[in-house]
């Protein structure tokens, strides 16, 4: 090592322990205000992001439910069709006569039950003429 390379520094013993930094209340308030504003902005940002994602989530949910509803309605229509098909008089008569061996009642076995509300009568003049 060359002696020319040495560098010398004069170290001065400075004792600043007794120095107490004075709290700058204005800066402190400014700091807290800044932190508050920052937090507020972050919260607003997070809230709007949350809203956006909730909107998306509900959008998917609504679409899914609408599809489910449409499917249920379609099932309902299919079931109604099935009920009406099963109620077809031709099918019922076939089961009654071929499987249950029922027979149609003769006129003597059947009672005609008259309705209290009859259809409108023909012209009075016709009835009178008869």
């Amino acid at each position, binding site marked *: 090592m060359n002696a020319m390379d040495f560098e010398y520094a004069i170290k001065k013993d400075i004792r600043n322990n007794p120095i107490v930094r004075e709290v700058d209340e204005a800066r402190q308030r400014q700091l807290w205000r800044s932190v508050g504003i920052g937090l507020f902005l972050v919260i607003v940002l997070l809230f709007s992001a949350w809203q956006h994602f909730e909107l998306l989530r509900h*959008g998917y949910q609504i679409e899914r439910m609408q599809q489910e509803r449409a499917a249920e309605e379609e099932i309902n229509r299919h079931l109604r069709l099935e009920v009406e098909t099963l109620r077809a008089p*031709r099918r019922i008569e076939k089961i009654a006569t071929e499987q249950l061996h029922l027979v149609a009642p003769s006129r003597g076995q059947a009672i005609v039950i008259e309705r209290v509300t009859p259809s409108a009568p023909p012209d009075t003049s*016709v009835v009178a003429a008869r």
Partner: protein
Amino acid sequence: MFIKANREAKPADWRTTVRSRVLVCATLLGLWTAAIEARLMYLQVFEHADLAARAERQQNRTVSPAAKRGDIVDRKGRLLAYSVDADTVAAVPSDIDDPNDVAAQICHALDECNAERRQAFVKKLSGRGSFAYVIRQISPEEARRVRALALPGITLLKESRRYYPNSELAAHVVGYVGLDNVGLGGIESAYDAQIRGSAGKLLIQTDNHNRAVFSRVERPATAGAGIELTIDQYLQFVAERELRTGVEANHAVGGSAIIMDPLTGEILALANWPTFNPNAFGRVEDDLRRNRAIQTLYEPGSTFKIVTASAAIEQKVITPETMIDTNPGSITFPGRKPIYDTHKYGVINFTDVIVKSSNVGAIKVGLRIGPERLTQYVSKFGFGQTLAPDFKGETAGIVWSADKLNDSALASVSMGYQVGVTALQMATAVSSIANGGHLLQPRVVRAFIKDGRRMEVAHKEMRRTIEPDTAATLTTIMEQVVERGTARAAQIEGYTIAGKTGTAAKLVNGHYQKSDYNASFVGFVPSRNPALTILVVIDSPHGNGYTGGAVSAPVFKRIAEAALTYMGVGPNLNPPPPVMVARHDPSVEQPITPTPAKAASLFASMLEPARDGLMPDLRGLSARDALRLLSRIGMSARLSGSGFVVDQRPQAGSPLVRGVACVLTLDRRGSTPALGGPQ
């Protein structure tokens, strides 16, 4: 000195180097940022419209939800035609590598698939297009099997399909619908514009996976209007069943039957045989889809004598008692063969001319009426013109103008030849006699139902045909046709029936056939307070007989018997005390637990007081059990309400007077008193 200078130059060097490098980096970064900014500006400003449109296309889908066709129901709201979604197999042919294999797999998944069909699939799948229907509107079970195959390039789409739950029932009236949801026959075609509705528009926002995120209805799909027919499902079934029985028993070619309400013109049933299944209308010949009752003309024969008789009585040409000489049982006109009666009737009154269906008598009366007056009444009764607005393709018929009616033609028209009528025209004409002379427009549409609102179609009187007195006289004559004339096979015990038979030889290639006839019967019942007009026409019967009285009148009888019982029309000849049932408001009905076992166990004990001549206590019994018990002790009943007996007159324990009607009050609302308890 040198050392010091060197020491001072070194820091300046690396700072310069760093500074220059930083400068280069900053410049590059700035350029990069500027490039990005420039690109962004280019995209967002200059390319904005194009890119926005592309995004719109990618993110938004517009679909057109198809409108459901309106339902077609009978007069009691029972479904006759209904639409549900069905699966359609579609393909992207360009995505399919082996069309033969895919076609074979699809074919295997279907219920019915032959080599020809499979070849058609191969042809569809072999194209290079982006879309092709493979097979449309398959059953749910078939769709499940095709879906399970998970074939590449094959998708299942939803399409609305029309179903007819009662298959053949009222097929000619209701009609049928093609694959593209367009009505092709019957009511489906006549009111297609109202039933079809209009497709909607739905905007769907999708994500990058093409999943729907939001949807907005731009224009809702408008469902088609529902149609309530005047047809009654049960009466239609009865008419079709009995017509088919009649046609098959008589080895006939076909036939038609119409049940009409003579007081409103409503068609309660319109049956044709042979018929078809509208769910598979494509598999039958066109001829089977023809609505014979409104499209086929036939010469009515003697049923048309009703028109001749109406004109003669109304115009006071004759009276029912006017004597007419039908000797020698035939009549001759120049240039044609003699016209014969079935038997030689001698001199008979006009009533007997109709009752015995004398051709000679009718011709002589027709000649007295004259061509002008007869054609006037033919027209008045609605022949030679279309009547029903609810049917497409109705045939007007063939009638003569008065100036072309010479004596020979007039003679033919008088007995129902040389005129072409439809079954519907004949039923409508006879209904006008039944209702006292009003020609009512025959209707098959009772109401339109749109957005939950029911708009009833008003009955329309077209004109007056005859005076009420003439109608009454004709009714009396027609009653005798059934009582002692050619239509005794139509008699129903307890009911008066007015009717007329008709037997007309069929005209083929200008010659009347000796083996093919149109056998018909038309009548109304009960004749004094008509509830039903029924017409039966059987085409070319080759069984035990060929006349209207032998072939069609029994069919009329069977249809009328079932219809009268179903409609609750009681006998009008020596009627028994009626069993009256008041229609109860279903909205206030609350079912209670029936007690059949309890009632059955008490049934025998309830007969005990009757043996002592006292009225049994019927409270708590069902209406059916109460009626059964009363009939055993020789009493009739009048019922009020529905459900179980809550009150009775005469009271339980009072002296029993046989033959007196017991009035029973029925209720379903749980206030049934304890059986046998104090009143």
